[in-house]
């Protein structure tokens, strides 16, 4: 007799335990009266958008939610049980794929994009919650997509996160950039203007050109500065087209790499040959070789 009781007790306990373990899997994903949480919120939002639900979106499965679901199920020819199971979920447009509470790499990438674009403010954790849902629908509406909160192929495309990156040939940028164009133009100007000067005087002339580029009263590129009408005599009389020698090139590279012997000068002139009366009104701040330099 006692044995029987013990066996019954043990079997009951075991079955209770097993039940406990399996109850989660059996009812997983299905929402019913009394459920709470993010998913309920999503369901409520959906139903409210469709006009079935009139209460607050509070994430609690109450009377109003129940009624709304029953109405929804009736209208959509589903089993009217007031529970959000697989069928109802499908009809509501909530695929389990994007609404899992588990980590999902796609969700994470979408969250990151949405955050960068200012739609999403939550954590980038790869878990699809209500914040992600709101962000996705907001994004979809702004971009003329169906506002269903599903990260489907169209949404992926619009977000720019479609699985495969474009397989088109990508040309590395470094092939399309050269600093030699700047260097040879600068070397030409240095050679035309200062080929008889000491090396530092050459670097100084190049530095003045670069200082002008950075100055608001002068053009904003090396070419415009050098070719500004009346700015450099060697440009006006064509001496700039002489072939620059190695030293002029070296000087051009040194000033492009930051050597400025003038400490920021924007004018220079040769007092022996200068014809501009205006330039003599400048205050001389430095003399190198035959050239005088001024800062203002």
């Amino acid at each position: 007799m006692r044995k029987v009781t013990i066996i019954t007790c043990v079997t009951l306990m075991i079955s209770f335990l097993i039940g406990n373990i399996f109850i989660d899997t059996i009812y997983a994903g299905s929402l019913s009266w009394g459920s709470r949480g993010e998913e309920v919120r999503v369901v409520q939002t959906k139903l409210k958008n469709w006009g079935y639900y009139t209460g607050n979106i509070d994430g609690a499965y109450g009377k109003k939610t129940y009624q709304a679901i029953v109405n929804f199920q009736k209208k959509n020819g589903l089993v009217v049980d007031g529970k959000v199971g697989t069928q109802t979920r499908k009809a509501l447009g909530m695929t389990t794929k994007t609404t899992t509470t588990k980590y999902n790499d796609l969700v994470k990438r979408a969250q990151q994009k949405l955050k960068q674009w200012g739609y999403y403010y939550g954590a980038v954790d790869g878990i699809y919650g209500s914040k992600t849902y709101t962000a996705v629908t907001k994004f979809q509406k702004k971009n003329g997509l169906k506002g269903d909160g599903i990260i489907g192929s169209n949404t992926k495309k619009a977000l720019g996160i479609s699985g495969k990156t474009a397989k088109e040939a990508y040309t590395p940028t470094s092939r399309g950039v050269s600093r030699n164009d700047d260097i040879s133009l600068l070397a030409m100007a240095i050679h035309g203007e200062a080929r008889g000067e000491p090396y530092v005087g050459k670097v100084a002339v190049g530095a003045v050109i670069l200082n002008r580029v950075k100055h608001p009263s002068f053009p904003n590129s090396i070419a415009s500065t050098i070719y500004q009408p009346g700015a450099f005599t060697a440009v006006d009389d064509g001496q700039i087209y002489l072939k620059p020698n190695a030293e002029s090139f070296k000087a051009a590279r040194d000033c492009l790499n930051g050597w400025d012997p003038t400490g920021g000068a924007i004018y220079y002139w040769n007092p022996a040959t200068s014809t501009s009366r205006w330039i003599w009104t400048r205050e001389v701040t430095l003399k190198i070789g035959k050239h005088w330099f001024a800062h203002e």
Partner: protein
Amino acid sequence: MKKGVFLALVVSCLGTGIWGYTQYQQNREHNVFLENQFQRMFHDMVVDVENIQVNLSKIRVTGSPKQNVLLFSDTRYLCYDAQEKLTQLPIAHGNVSRTEKFLSQVGDLSAALARNNLEGKPLNQDEKKMIEELHNYANYLSQQLISLQKNMADDGMRIGELRKKVNQQLKKANENMLTTSFLNIEEKMQAYPELIYDGPFSEHTKKRKSNLRGRSVEKDEIEKIAKDFVEDGRKYEVDSIGEIGNNRMPAYLLNLKPLGNEKKLMTMAITKTGGHVLWMLDTGKIKEVKISEKQGIAIAQNFLSKKGYENMIPTYSLKYDGQLLINFAYMQDDVTMYTDLVKVKVALDDGRIVGFEAEGYLFNHYKRNITDPKISIDEAKDKINIYTETSEPRLAIIPTEGGKEVLCYEFKTKYQEDAFLIYINAETGEEQKILQILIKDDGILML
């Protein structure tokens, strides 16, 4: 006989005539071609300025930051375009420099304000007032240009004529209608308010004071400083050749000639405050390359620590003309300071130092109090484009366009074959700057 001479004379006369006529034709053609270029630039500029003042007034009435960003970007483009056109007209620089500056600064300011708007900072009261004032100036400029344009059309005036007058100093400069108009505008532009904002042309960047401290160094001390700096056991003849008299960083300039070697020459600048070597250039010839880049960097690093520059880390290098240029940045508490820069050039034949430049370091360096970043590493990572391969970030201080310092996370990222440095502001989480790293045969460049 006489007949023959006469005939020869006629033929040569005719020949000269035809030659002269074709020359005249060609010259005329060139003048017209040039005039067309000038006219097009002038008219484009007038339209630009008209639109600048329209945009500035629109900015006063828009409510949305997005519209503001669009208007500011457009204004910026128009300003740069107008400035560019104005600088290419043959008008003496002294007659338009204020107007050119006005256009540059308004363009630059627009770029800074567009950025503010994107970061969610609306125009404050002062900025609104400033925009209103600038609008009035732009409006004045526009009116003047329109009336000038009309007068030019009425009189059939040619811009190309200006070129001749600029070169002939005998004629009065203000004879010319164009010059007079621009001189009038220039006078008015003297008065426009000083613009201070976060941009390269802002008024405050010129007035920035150096952080360099130290006693004032006399001229008779610089010889010793120069010799101590070189210290290669050779004897030098030191010539003082002048002074750099700017306000930013006044310095003595001197030449060093090794005794018995006339061809070699070193030029050096030594700051008047503290007596630091500001820059040095060695013009000696470089022979056959024997030293590797790695060795070159080690030599430069060793040289710097001997000169008292500690905690310097190499950031990029470039090989040219047989020498290796290395950029060093200062590092404090594991934060790289891209403001405190020193450049060293090493000759790759015998490993001597042939170039040195420390203005960035001397001007900016001070002991900073680095605050902890408000943004965590993970938050910063979220800002990075998902298609790039990204390394672990490190902290760095970088200068903004206007010379302010911002603490950023520096990410080295890769997209396909291209490499980039991305800076995420550690206070606000904004993407502050993107640099592209270009690896070429002669070194690594950053754009």
